[in-house]
């Protein structure tokens, strides 16, 4: 029965749409209620720094657990087994970098964006423009991945077929996102993320319990059943896989093994350089609350990835790899098909709505980050004719939200066929190479100067993008973006292993070759403030 339904979308599309509409109605009501005080820049960009650590931690997990995490990782585990699990470990361990090295000092020394921290001691204009450029690049790649994912989901969940149907759904997601961000600002966006995180993690927990219940709470039984379902596949390449050990996806050759290490490097160092994650540290009143946020985020994200392990193997065991691969959306459909198997139309409807909410919330978080960075870092420092007030920055960023929303819809329609995981990995690689070295150097190395920052940021961004363009991900392979041409000379689809060390080295070389030692008084003030929180931006008092 599942097979027949899967061939033409599963469950009842009307139920899926109905539950999603309910989610939109409830969140929209909350966003409108939350937006009453959205007038000042601190309100619009950072929700008045009024969220508590636990609230912000839940919102961070809402921002971070994208559709790629939920559908992509569960699907990868269902089809490739262990290799899918490796992604989730990189995504989780990465949070220790944010917790130990970045979150608190960043909160103490900045205001709205990452560039605030850098321009505290470096020359303001060039550094702001560089930081905003890398921020916009990361947000754009991440945004594309989410919008492309929305298109793919539609075919499966709403039974909307054809390019026009997908384009309409992508447009609906884009317009809703614009509405949330314009009305709600950072506060409304944060509430959407909190609600979505609770639904997503709760839904995954429920499904995990149901899967465990089917196997008498014995995890080893799930693994055994998953392996025998995969071994029984009609597809010989799939049937040969050992899904309980690494190597099914990345073990074929030395190149693919190095490619895998390169991906692992970008995942673990990318998180603490993701601008939409960094911006969330400014929505809490103090460094201590920033720390509590990360602790909550680590607990929730860790628990969620443990659930996806059970869901992935559960989907392989209960639904079977052949049914998953035959469904529209292929491996991305593993989690929804498992939901249908476990709880019928209702659970599938809930999980589908959660998946849409996930895309919507992540897109909203990315957009407000990109718009803030454009207004606060580029517009305000390029407009030299007059001093740009914070109110004007809010106005500019509202316009930017609309422009970005329309751009995201257009690009999402064009990118509907692209590989989501590849786009997300690209965003992480750019964040790790272009942002993290400069953030760490400016927090911990007093000698670090403007030339070091510019070389590291532009060097990291350009090398990552150039290596990707000339990699087998873009040309010269069957799975490439442009399979018919071949101009690839770089053998790895993941450039991190080259571009991340390069950006770290460029930061050192650029700094040491420049006579600029900065202003010792400013360096001293920065160090005292970043470590103690003296003069840090406080919560808005109502």
């Amino acid at each position, binding site marked *: 029965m599942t097979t027949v339904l899967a061939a033409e979308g599963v469950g009842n599309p009307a139920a899926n749409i109905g539950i999603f509409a309910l989610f939109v109605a409830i969140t929209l009501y909350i966003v409108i209620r939350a937006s009453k005080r959205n007038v000042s820049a601190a309100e619009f960009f950072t929700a008045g720094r009024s969220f508590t650590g636990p609230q912000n931690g839940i919102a961070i997990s809402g921002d971070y657990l994208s559709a790629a995490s939920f559908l992509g990782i569960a699907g990868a585990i269902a089809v490739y087994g262990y290799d899918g699990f490796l992604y989730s470990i990189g995504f989780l361990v990465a949070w220790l970098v944010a917790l130990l090295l970045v979150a608190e000092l960043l909160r103490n020394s900045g*205001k709205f964006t990452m560039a605030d921290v850098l321009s505290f001691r470096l020359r303001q204009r060039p550094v702001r423009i560089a930081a905003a450029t890398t921020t916009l690049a990361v947000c754009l790649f991440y945004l594309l991945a989410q919008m492309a994912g929305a298109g793919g989901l539609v075919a499966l969940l709403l039974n909307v077929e054809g390019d026009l149907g997908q384009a309409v759904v992508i447009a609906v997601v884009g317009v809703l996102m614009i509405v949330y961000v314009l009305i709600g600002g950072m506060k409304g966006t944060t509430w959407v993320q909190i609600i979505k995180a609770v639904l997503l993690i709760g839904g995954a927990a429920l499904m995990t319990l149901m899967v465990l219940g089917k196997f008498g709470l014995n995890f080893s039984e799930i693994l055994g059943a998953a392996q025998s379902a995969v071994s029984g596949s009609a597809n010989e390449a799939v049937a040969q896989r050992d899904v*309980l050990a690494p190597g099914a996806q990345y073990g074929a050759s030395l190149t693919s093994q190095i490619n*895998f290490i390169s991906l692992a490097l970008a995942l673990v160092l990318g998180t603490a350089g993701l601008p939409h994650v960094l911006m969330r540290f400014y929505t809490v009143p103090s460094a201590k609350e920033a720390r509590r946020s990360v602790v909550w985020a680590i607990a929730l994200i860790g628990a969620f990835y443990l659930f996806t392990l059970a869901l992935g193997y559960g989907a392989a065991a209960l639904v079977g790899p052949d049914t998953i691969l035959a469904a529209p959306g292929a491996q991305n459909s593993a989690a929804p098909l498992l939901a249908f198997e476990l709880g019928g139309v209702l659970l599938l409807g809930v999980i589908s709505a959660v998946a849409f909410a996930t895309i919507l919330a992540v897109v909203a978080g990315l957009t407000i980050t990109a718009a803030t960075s454009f207004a606060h870092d580029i517009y305000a420092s390029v407009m030299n004719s007059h001093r740009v007030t914070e109110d004007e920055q809010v106005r500019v960023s509202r316009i930017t939200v609309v422009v970005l929303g329309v751009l995201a819809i257009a690009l999402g329609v064009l990118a509907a066929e692209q590989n989501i995981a590849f786009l997300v990995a690209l965003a992480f690689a750019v964040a790790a190479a272009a942002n993290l070295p400069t953030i760490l150097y400016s927090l911990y190395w007093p000698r670090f100067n403007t030339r070091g920052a510019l070389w590291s940021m532009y060097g990291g961004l350009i090398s990552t993008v150039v290596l990707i363009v000339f990699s087998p991900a873009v040309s010269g392979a069957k799975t490439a973006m442009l399979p018919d041409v071949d101009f690839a000379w770089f053998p790895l689809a993941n450039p991190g292993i080259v571009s991340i060390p390069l950006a770290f080295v460029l930061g050192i070389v650029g700094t040491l070759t420049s006579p600029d030692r900065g202003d010792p008084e400013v360096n001293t003030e920065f160090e005292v403030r970043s470590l103690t929180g003296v003069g840090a931006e406080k919560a808005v008092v109502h």
Partner: protein
Amino acid sequence: MSETHHPSTETAVSAQQYLVTQASPEFQELRSRLRRFVFPMSALFLLWYFLYVILGAFAHDFMATKVWGDINVGLLIGLGQFVSTFVITAIYVRFANRDLDPRAAAIRAELEGGAA
């Protein structure tokens, strides 16, 4: 806009006060405690993570060794990454609450109180 940027402060602390604070033994103690904890700990978890990644990339047979039922070494080391992440988080929070927060609060109180 000026070339160097000073975010708005609610308390005016002079450059001289920052210099004095930075040179004080209390501040140096805070700085060195922070660095002595976060740098070795970061090195530790990154080494442990890359050990896992390299085993995952090159030691397939070792990772496939069955330990109990269908649970193998690879799965246990993978779950070990979760455990180590949770444990390091807990140790850091304890350390920060006990060793960092009181020191940072004392310096902050002195600077902001002295400026008022």
